[in-house]
């Protein structure tokens, strides 16, 4: 019994020392207090001149059930079946003039070319999602806000966060800069782990 008391006292002392140390040690997170979302890069809520749209805009369109919206996945059946945007269809398809088409592929060049081809063929509302699935996963499903964001940033953030949650995303407030992750990593986390506890 005496041994146990000694052991417990030792454990308690170690815990107290490490805990007190934590009190004065500063942040355990890596990185400086840089902003997770750069203030210089405003969120694009309208299509760009060359047809580029942001994942947030596409999400917005899906949510408000924009009439005639079609989403085209250029990546092939295997990639499509692993993960695709909501309402996306595997290419190729036929489109009618009045429809709004958003294409995405494995890289931005492919997507941009496909959109411009469609526009040359008479589709006025043909857009592309530059970073495709990766953008959907990071910008929409895993957006981050720095804790020292300005009130303007927070106002925009509220809209982003709500949209994100609508699609099952996890908006989070994060100190420091998260190292850029590959789309494959983010996909693995989002799809496999978000519910497995």
């Amino acid at each position, binding site marked *: 019994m005496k041994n146990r008391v000694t052991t417990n006292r030792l454990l308690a002392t170690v815990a107290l020392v490490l805990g007190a140390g934590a009190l004065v040690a500063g942040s355990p997170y890596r990185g400086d207090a840089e902003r997770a979302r750069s203030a210089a890069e405003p969120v694009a809520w309208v299509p760009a001149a060359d047809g580029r749209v942001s994942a947030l805009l596409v999400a917005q369109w899906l949510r408000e059930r924009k009439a005639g919206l079609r989403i085209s996945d250029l990546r092939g059946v295997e990639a499509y079946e692993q993960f695709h945007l909501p309402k996306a269809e595997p290419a190729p398809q036929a489109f009618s003039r009045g429809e709004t088409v958003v294409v995405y592929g494995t890289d931005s060049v492919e997507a941009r070319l496909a959109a411009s081809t469609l526009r040359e063929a008479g589709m006025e509302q043909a857009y592309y999602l530059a970073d495709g699935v990766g953008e959907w996963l990071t910008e929409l499903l895993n957006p981050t806000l720095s804790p020292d964001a300005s009130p303007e940033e927070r106002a925009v953030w509220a809209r982003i966060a709500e949209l994100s949650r609508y699609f099952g995303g996890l908006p989070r407030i994060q100190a420091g800069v998260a190292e850029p992750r590959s789309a494959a990593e983010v996909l693995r986390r989002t799809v496999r782990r978000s*519910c*497995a*506890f």
Partner: protein
Amino acid sequence: MSHPRPYMNPYLAGVGIGIALLLAFVIMGRGLGASGAFSTVVATGVHTVAPDHTTNKLPYEAYLGDGSVSPLKDWLVFEILGITLGGLLSALLAGRFRVSIDKGPRASNRSRLLFAFGGGTIMGIGAKLARGCTSGQALTGGALLSVGSWLFIIGAFAAGYLAAPLFRREWT
């Protein structure tokens, strides 16, 4: 079986578990869990018996994956197999393995088993709602200082104490 040995110092046992949890964080970047494994088992079971019932249906879909690999090939399922083995090993080593029913001095086997099933059912619902149980939320989320997990801890302990009088006859 030899005489059952006394239990280990609970604080040391806790430290042992804490180290196991820490290893999970360090190696896998995730914590422990338990109820998730059972969700996978249920989803797999239902899918085997009635596959149409689980297609495109939450929450089943979330546990079944895309069909290319067995849903049972899952981190938590393997972990829970480990938990079972670890428990068996410790019990055998300590002479504590015994086919029996643990219950309070005034409870009958019948009432114990009924309450075990009932309590399990209720916990299953609670764990699904909270996205975890004592292992996933309290232990893991607690160590990570996650807000939801601490809410879970507070809610669970408070409810346990408040509901305790109802089951006094079972345990004391």
